[in-house]
């Protein structure tokens, strides 16, 4: 369960159907339009996308969702920053953005891979279903999704 005291922004969007977006590193240019079309197909009245903000594809998706007025829970694997761009402020004011950090403590720096795994686990555990933009069969996301049957994969090696 998400501790609402740790959530910044519009907490009411957490009551919507939560769809996590995960993506392995190395997403191919061919997959990006597929991810974009998936984002455009979302029902913004009933869906909240749970997304990270580390990789470029996650940042692109987050900005597209804010632009398209789709509710968005950003999950950061580092402490909450002190400053946000005005587009974040606008999305929060529109009741469409919440932000949460899975950093263990404000002054503890973890290995990037460890902090990403913690973030991914949070997203998987706190979402109703999971969409994977690109899945590397040898990557950490693949192993973290083991045993989950609510997963849709948009792009995968060998497909």
């Amino acid at each position, binding site marked *: 369960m998400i501790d609402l005291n740790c959530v910044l922004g*519009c907490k009411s969007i957490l009551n919507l159907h939560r769809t996590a977006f995960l993506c392995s590193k190395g997403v191919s240019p061919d997959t990006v339009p597929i991810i974009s079309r998936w984002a455009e197909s979302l029902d913004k009245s009933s869906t909240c996308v749970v997304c990270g903000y580390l990789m*470029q594809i996650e940042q692109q998706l987050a*900005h597209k969702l804010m632009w398209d007025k789709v509710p968005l829970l950003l999950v950061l694997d580092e402490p909450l920053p002190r400053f946000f761009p005005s*587009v974040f*402020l606008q999305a*929060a*004011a529109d009741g469409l953005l919440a932000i949460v950090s899975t950093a263990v403590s404000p002054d503890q720096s973890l290995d990037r891979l460890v902090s990403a795994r913690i973030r991914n686990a949070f997203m998987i555990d706190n979402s109703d279903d999971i969409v994977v933009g690109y899945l590397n069969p040898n990557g950490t996301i693949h192993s973290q999704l083991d045993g989950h049957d609510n997963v849709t994969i948009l792009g995968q090696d060998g497909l």
Partner: protein
Amino acid sequence: MVFNDDLVAFAVDTQVPPVSIGDVSLLSAERSLAIFLDPSRPLSSSFRSSVLSFYHDVVLFSPLSTPQERSLVLSLLSADFSVVAVSRDLLSPVYRTEFLSAAADHRLLLLDVCLLTGVSSPSPEAFSLLCHRFMAANAECALCNSPRDAFADVFPSLSYPVSFLS
């Protein structure tokens, strides 16, 4: 967190500059107070504490221009006040976390007074005057940290009394 400037710029450039960000219903609040800070005077802790103590149920109007104004607005937002911040270039700067929280809680309205009034690229003095006139016209009472002379270009036009606190 390091924001990708290119991505932010892309998102910003594709938008029409907003006149406001936040809850416009704050403009029609039942009780509102405009705060005028004299930039030549430091913001005293007693003034700040008086505002925080006595006006919690009031929507506070303030410019967001000088360091004193920014400091006071930040204090107000941190203390869960509702604030109408009169500013400009709403998409240019980054905002502190307190602004994002207040926006999500419908306690904040940021207004671009230059777009509102059609005045482009005013000098700092002209911008300050624009802010003060906007506040004078839209709030229902005023509080100032300086003698009346400091705002002689605005106060004579007010139809309501002004309170002074040092």
